[in-house]
């Protein structure tokens, strides 16, 4: 299975964000924006690449819009009302509330001021927004059985979201625009550590590490303060939403702090309406504003009052917020005409202005005269200040996010080509994640993990789901020579042991994983066990050399501090004991002593009739004609026989024990084979 990612916009550029991701039979469109820099067909994404026939509703499963900026939502009414897409559309509550204002404002500028043919009408916007389902943060929406989406806080503007989408087992996040540092009215982006196949992230500041916003805010306040201190008027042409509220918060707070009395005005139409949205959507703002809204809503500005037309030529300093933002006409143009010729006045401009507007002319160079039409012109003598509060994350933020999410693949969009290439290189080398920066209308194919759903029996789950606390008490068996340093290889805690089971694959049913004993039940068969056995001769003269302590049982095994097995060989010999006829039990004990002197291990179980280590059992064999003795290996010495049996899994260990028992143990000196050993039952 692959994820196919078609970049319809914002590929190696900024503008008309639109990505269509196709996976597992579903297609999700992330954002549906317009390009503000073009006026021809290039302003909209090339939707014909999605479907030649124009039947978009059956091809696209859903559209998700990240935030209300036009380069993310601008083409939506066109796509739904003109192109005829009829399926589900999702966006957050603030986006749903604010996007229509944004769209209508743009439509008005385009149609009424510039006399263009309209691409969509006001009715189109209204109809389009009716089809939108509003999302809350972190709300998990099942669009259909296999498609799940969820919004995370992105910080960029009010209601901006990063979108997590899951189709079957394939997961992805589309970030939209985001900001990793909190600002005056919005918090920082927040997302969980998700296991992702794909991350599509913006990269506006792919290479810049930004200085603090604080410096730029201070600069803005200084410029404004200087202007009003000289008795000048400040015109802040701004769109009603977002920037206006942010600057207003900034100024309101500054006024409070500096105890300024100069009036701040909001032009009509901008005041109550826009602030009302912010007051209702307060839970989407920064923590500080949220914490205090019950007693004082930060968007009830103390120093702000409505503006009246007669104030335009009133004397004395003031600050005025006026729409539209790019001085493309309307009230802000009217005021601009009056204030621009005076040197003491100040006009601030937003970061981006559409070509053809006065704002754009002011930004490109410093014109002294602007011609409105044949007869009217404005002499511009006032100061111009350009705002540069960009609520995008910087390169560090992008790297942090990619690092946090650690997806399998990253696609960069919404940035400048050369910088994106640099960032792509960093992501690949520093984070080791496959990264792409496709151009518009390119498709990136990404392989995903194949996942199969199977059943597991309760017994299987039980044996592995509980954290294995035994790990702590697990001991090791190591073959040691007399003066070797212990090799302790304890598995680190938390590293669970691998689960083992048997997968049953039936053509008609879902595959099922079972434990070994369940397999036999399932098949209706009985186990047929295989054991290996050998009747091992042990020379008594060897036994004589091996000392043992008959006095107490407590000396069996070695204490941890006394871990050098050499200690066991030092106690005095008791030769008179070794000559007497030993009982079965003491024979085994003697053998145990010997084994323990050769291997560092206290896990050998001592039972009355046999010794046991893992599956290996050792009996003493008293039958003189044991059929499993191969030939007489006594060599004339006093020889006892021990019958050993084991299952094939412990073969190596068994043969090593036999070698020790036979007394030809010198070969074991270099052997440091170690293995995990289960706790003895007693």
């Amino acid at each position, binding site marked *: 299975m692959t994820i196919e990612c078609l970049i319809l916009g914002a590929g190696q550029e900024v503008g008309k964000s639109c990505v269509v991701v196709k996976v597992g039979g579903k297609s999700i469109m992330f954002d549906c924006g317009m390009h503000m820099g073009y006026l021809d067909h290039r302003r909209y994404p090339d939707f014909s690449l999605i479907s030649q026939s124009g039947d978009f509703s059956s091809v696209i499963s859903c559209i998700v819009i990240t935030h209300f900026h036009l380069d993310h939502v601008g083409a939506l009414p066109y796509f739904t009302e003109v192109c005829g897409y009829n399926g589900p559309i999702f966006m957050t509550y603030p986006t749903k509330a604010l996007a229509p204002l944004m769209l209508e404002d743009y439509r008005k500028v385009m149609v009424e001021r510039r006399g263009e043919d309209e691409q969509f009408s006001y009715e189109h916007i209204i109809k389009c927004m009716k089809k939108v389902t509003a999302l809350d943060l972190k709300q998990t929406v099942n669009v259909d059985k296999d498609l799940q989406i969820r919004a995370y806080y992105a910080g960029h503007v009010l209601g901006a979201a990063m979108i997590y989408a899951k189709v079957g087992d394939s997961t992805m996040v589309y970030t939209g625009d985001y900001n990793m540092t909190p600002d005056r009215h919005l918090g920082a982006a927040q997302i969980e550590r998700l296991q992702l196949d794909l991350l599509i992230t913006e990269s506006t500041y792919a290479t810049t590490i930004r200085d603090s916003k604080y410096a730029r805010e201070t600069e803005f306040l200084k410029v404004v303060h200087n202007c009003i201190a000289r008795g000048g008027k400040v015109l802040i042409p701004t769109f009603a939403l977002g920037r206006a509220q942010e600057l207003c918060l900034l100024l309101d707070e500054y006024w409070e702090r500096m105890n300024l009395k100069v009036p701040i005005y909001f032009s009509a139409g901008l005041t109550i309406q826009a602030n009302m949205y912010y007051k209702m959507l307060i839970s989407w703002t920064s923590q500080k504003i949220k914490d205090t809204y019950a007693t004082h809503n930060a968007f009830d500005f103390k120093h702000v009052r409505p503006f009246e037309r007669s104030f335009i030529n009133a004397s004395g300093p003031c600050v005025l917020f006026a729409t539209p933002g790019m001085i493309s006409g309307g009230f802000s143009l009217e005021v601009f005409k009056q204030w621009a010729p005076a040197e003491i006045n100040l006009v601030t401009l937003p970061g981006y202005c559409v070509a053809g507007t006065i704002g754009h002319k002011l930004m490109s160079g410093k014109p002294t005269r602007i011609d409105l039409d044949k007869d009217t012109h404005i002499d511009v003598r006032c100061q111009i200040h350009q705002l540069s509060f960009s609520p995008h994350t910087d390169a560090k933020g992008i790297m942090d996010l990619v690092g946090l999410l650690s997806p399998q693949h990253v696609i960069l969009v919404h940035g400048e080509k050369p910088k994106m290439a640099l960032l792509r290189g960093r992501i690949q080398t520093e984070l080791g994640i496959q990264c792409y920066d496709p151009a518009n209308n390119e498709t990136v194919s990404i392989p995903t993990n194949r996942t199969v759903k199977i059943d*597991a029996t309760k017994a299987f789950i039980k044996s592995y789901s509980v954290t294995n606390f035994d790990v702590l008490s697990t001991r090791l068996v190591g073959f040691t020579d007399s003066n070797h340093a212990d090799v302790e290889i304890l598995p680190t805690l938390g590293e669970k042991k691998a689960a083992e089971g048997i997968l049953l694959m039936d053509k008609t049913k879902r595959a099922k994983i079972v434990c070994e004993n369940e397999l036999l039940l399932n098949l209706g068969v009985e186990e047929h066990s295989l054991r290996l056995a050998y009747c091992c001769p042990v020379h008594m003269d060897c036994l004589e050399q091996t000392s043992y302590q008959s006095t107490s049982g407590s000396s069996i095994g070695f204490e941890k501090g006394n871990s050098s097995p050499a200690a066991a060989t030092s106690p005095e010999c008791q030769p008179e004991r070794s000559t007497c006829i030993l009982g079965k039990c003491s024979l085994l004990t003697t053998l145990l002593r010997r084994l323990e002197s050769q291997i560092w291990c206290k896990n050998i179980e001592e039972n009355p009739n046999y010794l046991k280590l893992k599956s290996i059992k050792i009996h003493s064999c008293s039958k003189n004609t044991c059929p499993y003795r191969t030939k007489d290996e006594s060599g004339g010495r006093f020889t006892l026989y021990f019958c050993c049996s084991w299952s094939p899994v412990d073969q190596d260990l068994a043969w090593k024990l036999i070698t020790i028992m036979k007394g030809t143990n010198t070969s074991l000196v270099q052997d440091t084979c170690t293995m995990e050993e289960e706790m003895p039952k007693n």
Partner: protein
Amino acid sequence: MKLTCLSMGHGLYCPPCHMLELCGFRVLLECPLDLSALTVFSPVIPNSAPDLIGAVPWYKTVKSLHLWDPSLIDLVIISTPYAMLGLPFLTCLHDFSGKIYATEAVVRIGCLMMEDLVSMHAEYNQFYGPDERSGCPGWMEWEELEKLPLELRDIVMGKDGEELGSWMPLYSATDVKECMLKIHSLRYGEEACYNSTLILKSFSSGLEIGSSNWMINGPRRNFTYLSSSIFKSAHAMGFDYYSLRGNDLILFSDLSVEMTHDGPNDAYGCKIYNETVVEDPLPYHISAVGANCASEQDLVKCLLENDEILEESDKIAFICSCVLDSLNEGGSVLIPIGRIGIVHFLLEKIWQYLELSNMMVPIFMISTISEEILAFMNAMPEWLCEERQLKLFSGEPLFGHIELIKEKKLYLFPVLNSSNLSMIWQEPCLVFCPHWNLRLGPAVHLLSRWHKDHKSLLILEEGVDAEMALLPFKTLSMKVLQCSFFAGIKLKKIQPLLELLQPKLVLFPDRLKSQLNFSKNYTHLYYSENSTLRVPCLKEDFEVRLMRYLDFKLQPRILPHENLAIARLEGQFLVSNGNHLLVPVKNPTHISSKQQLNWGSVDPDLLLQALKDKGIDGLISYDETAPCHGVHSIHISAPDEAVIEIDSKQTVIFAANENLTAVICETFSSVCSGI
């Protein structure tokens, strides 16, 4: 899974409380307080009823909850603001360490309600002075209890005095703050994952802003906790039943059903206390909808029938006209209703009526939290009904009270003796204030001021024992209107709802046994108070995801007789987000070093033949005397000596030669079925 119903509750303000043992976790559903029991205490007013207990009140918690070890409670789930009032009692226990989940809106409202409770309670402390006794208060002593009238004693002690232990002195504001820190609040529809195993998700229940039903999904359980729900509400987002579809198990915990049918309700579900208004009661359509013929559309239609909202607005209209009548006569109106949504809906409606009849009567809202609640309600559009959300999208205030405050028609005051209140105060007026049990808050004082005024009106909710609540306010000349507002699913809608949700098993309160007859599409069990119900498992196996399937490098072995393929599988076992995952291990153990599992019988001739092919020679002998159907022995003579003994269950290879043994083992695996 086990379910223990700790309490069936007392109506909306004291919802049912359950303890659930699910997937090895202990989940407490709701932690309410029974504030109606507070009526046994005498309010702080002159000439109060002598029978009532004159002391600083204690508060009645869920009795059976004290029997559970708080340290063993893993999870607490809260679905309405009223259901969390008992939480600080739990969280202030130092050995409680469970996680508490509730929706953000419930947490905010609940927190305010607790703070309000604490500040209203302070009045008692001021009156009686600080409590210096340790241990039980005086009224709890046996002699004192014996003196109590029977009704009061029943409330205090329950049957056999078993409820005496559930009384607690109220928590402090600090306890509330600490409690709030321990709650994890969730946004609308947010999924929370507990211990990687349980996935919790809330869906609106329509009862109140933020109140929710819960879906708890574990590895083998899809569990729905259905609390009191309202399909369509005039303020909160309606009951989102659609998202609950497809879960196997439903705990039906909406106990409002019986309540609405109790007692002789009059028109619009309201009754006028002390007076008898003879009007035709609304005919209830209890006859359940035929389950077999209903298609899905029919079911949805039936569920969304507007009769509830119509009835509700009829009821509100009736209340408004009563209010208007009283005001016209020159009497004041006191509305101590606790349900925040209803209060605001009433406020808007009454205002409309006042506007229409051109009356200028001041409306007061007196409560320490009124300002915060109002601010909050206008900033939580995500939890409101569709009509109010549309207001957001068109940029209008979500509730009408913003306008009213601006136009100085509604006044908010924290307490009765606020300094500005006396300047504005005029009667007749309309007052919304707590508390519905008439023992706390400004309602007590206003009632003692107005209770002799026959022109004034008191509006109470159904579920409050009016007789008891009004006991200290004798002689009562004031009109009292007691109304029941919808607080849950109507009986007739239970059946279609369950048809739509398609559960396999439903757990009902035993009280509903006689009132419902069920379809056969699902089984149902009944739970009763203080008994543990063992709920059978519906799924035998766990679902596991085999991640990166191809990396497991399975070596399947085909069993032709069983039509099966089997393969050994080794993987790292993980639990993440409620899913069991098996991922390939980095360094898989070599298959050959593992114990082989063999089954069936071994044919000695076949084995010898296979050995011969590898250059090993031997002879077969047969010993009939051995147990288990005799033993075949193969004596290997070349290249070395060895003996192979085969019986029906076991094969033993005796050999001194390590290499020979290995070859024989290998040959054995080729003739015996195994893996």
